[in-house]
């Protein structure tokens, strides 16, 4: 124990004797550790932010299309059969514990007229559950009631791109509410204006829409009995897969699909989208970490460089220490301790600096930054590891010196 304290004492004395050089060597490690901590903070923060944005896109959404139909061997593509019904949509939340919400959708792309202007847009017909599933809100007026849906009331909600094209860009949104609009020559009353959603991940303008009650669109505009698709929402992003399976079970049962026969519907989720985004952010985090590790590596090589110079410069000192009784292992430990002390203190300062830089970036650029304890521990341990790894070769070189040659070294 005493000898370890003595080695530490000797190393600290030697480092203090060359304070400027010690600090400059430390700087390499400080920058390395600081960049690891800051980069991991930025990386983790970005990842979490991307993940939450992807969740906002509706990653727990499940879309059910009818399967493709074929006439005489000619397949006509997804969504062309007419076998999904309102009852199917209603059956899902009742039978699937992972899927609390579902809404049938009918869709018509048609010409609309108002304010003496006309515009071609997509009219969606759905139930009230459509709004929470799509995370849609109104900025003026309100959504329709279940009663209005049942009675196929001629009311609708309007997207802001449609307003822009019919009333102009600066038209007061509140004054649109209550106005009349003709959809396929049927007059509707606008009861609400939808919040701006912007483009979706496929570049589609989500504001170029009109939403009306389901039965209104199905019966009054399209005159059909089936639904185009069913939109459902799993209770959470992790329950999407379980929910899909439950939906497959209940719909297969309802459609009397025989075992071994492909079901007459297709289920799509956005799990792929969410996976793609998290893969991108993982790649980014790894990239940042690699860049940061390179600076840590450079810092380590700096330590080795300085230790080698220091050992050459202090050859006579090493010779003297050996002459007065220092064994090779003690000399090795002394120089190793110097390297480790440099990287240890460099690590501490670097962690502080890294957190500081991350905080500055957070406040100045409003980036999401998450400093995890793991990143600090990892950065600190790698600094210590770098010290031992790069300090070992010079220290071993010193310990192998012949005391006679070392004493006479000029």
């Amino acid at each position: 124990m005493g000898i370890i304290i003595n080695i530490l004492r000797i190393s600290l004395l030697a480092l203090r004797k060359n304070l400027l050089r010690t600090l400059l060597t430390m700087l390499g490690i400080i920058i390395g550790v600081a960049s690891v901590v800051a980069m991991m903070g930025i990386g983790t923060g970005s990842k979490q932010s991307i993940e939450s944005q992807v969740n906002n896109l509706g990653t727990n959404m499940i879309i059910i299309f009818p399967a493709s139909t074929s006439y005489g061997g000619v397949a006509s593509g997804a969504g062309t059969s007419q076998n999904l019904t309102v009852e199917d949509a209603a059956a899902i939340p009742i039978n699937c514990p992972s899927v609390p919400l579902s809404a049938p959708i009918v869709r018509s792309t048609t010409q609309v007229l108002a304010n003496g202007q006309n515009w071609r847009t997509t009219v969606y017909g759905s139930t009230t559950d459509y709004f929470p599933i799509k995370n849609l809100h109104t900025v003026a007026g309100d959504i329709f009631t279940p009663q209005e849906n049942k009675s196929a009331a001629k009311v609708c909600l309007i997207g802001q791109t449609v307003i822009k094209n019919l009333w102009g860009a600066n038209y007061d949104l509140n004054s649109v509410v209550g106005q009349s609009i003709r959809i396929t020559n049927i007059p509707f009353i606008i009861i609400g204006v939808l919040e701006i959603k912007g483009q979706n991940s496929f570049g589609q303008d989500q504001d170029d829409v009109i939403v009306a009650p389901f039965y209104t669109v199905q019966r009054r505009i399209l005159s059909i009995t089936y639904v185009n698709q069913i939109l459902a929402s799993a209770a959470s992003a992790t329950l999407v897969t379980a929910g899909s399976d439950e939906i497959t079970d209940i719909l297969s049962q309802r459609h009397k699909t025989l075992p071994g026969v492909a079901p007459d519907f297709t289920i799509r989720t956005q799990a792929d989208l969410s996976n793609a985004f998290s893969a991108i952010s993982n790649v980014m985090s790894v990239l940042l970490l690699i860049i940061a590790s390179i600076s840590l590596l450079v810092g380590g090589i700096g330590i080795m460089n300085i230790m080698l110079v220091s050992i050459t410069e202090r050859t006579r000192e090493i010779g003297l220490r050996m002459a007065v009784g220092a064994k090779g292992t003690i000399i090795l430990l002394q120089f190793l301790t110097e390297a480790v002390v440099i990287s240890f203190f460099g690590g501490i300062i670097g962690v502080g600096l890294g957190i500081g830089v991350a905080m500055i970036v957070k406040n100045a650029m409003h980036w999401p930054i998450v400093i995890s304890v793991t990143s600090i521990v990892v950065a600190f341990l790698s600094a210590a590891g770098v010290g031992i790894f790069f300090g070992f070769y010079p220290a071993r070189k010193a310990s192998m010196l012949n005391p006679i040659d070392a004493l006479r070294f000029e």
Partner: protein
Amino acid sequence: MQKNNIEASALGTGKTKTVISVKGLEKIYTMGDVKVYALRGIDLDVTEGEFVAIMGTSGSGKSTLMNILGCLDKPTTGSYTLDGVNVSTSSRDELAEIRNKKIGFVFQSFNLLSRTSALENVELPLLYNRKISSQERRERGIKALTSVGLASRMKNMPNQLSGGQQQRVAIARALVNDPVIIFADEPTGNLDSRTSFEVIDIFQKLNEKGITIVLVTHEPDIAQFATRKVVFKDGKIIDDSQVKDRKKAGEELAALPPIDQIDSEIKKVETTEKVESN
């Protein structure tokens, strides 16, 4: 070849404890295909309390012998017994241990650690002895510095000391581990004659207290202060005799002209020494 006269030891007490016993020592350096014989069969005994001066021109083998005696090097053949322990077959680490416990070194170029106080320099050998507490280390360091007359300079750095004072710090360092023998390799080589006498005076006083000293020098004047003179040539001992008309460094010092007359000269010498020692 051997002319050991134990009764003529400096103490004259008739003690017969042999500190160093060397038999048939050879050291051969192989450089490529060429074999260089640095030592060709040395027999030498040193008894406790002796002050031996080893003399010889450069290349005579005196430094090689010194390295082996100082346990810094191992002989090719032959046996070497130090303080009753055969060290000719000891390992590197065992030799380090022996140097730490039994040997004190004084070098020509002082070899003090720069930017390290006189006391810390003296304490250095004890740092490598795990049995010595920091308090004991400090006490022994102060005692050793006091014994060379530098109690007032404990906190000074080597560059704040004169050449003679630096060498006295080095002697204190050699003393601090209570060695059985002190090896001094040209200890006056970098010093002017006045400081040389001061340093030799310390050696003589230590020797009078019973400390065994082996001193390597090529200056015949310096050898006259020892009790015994061993002369080397071509790796062999050609003369081994007791010193007749042994001189006292203290008396020589007193006989020198007063210090102010040679003051400027000393300063000049000291300036160059400082440059070298740093």
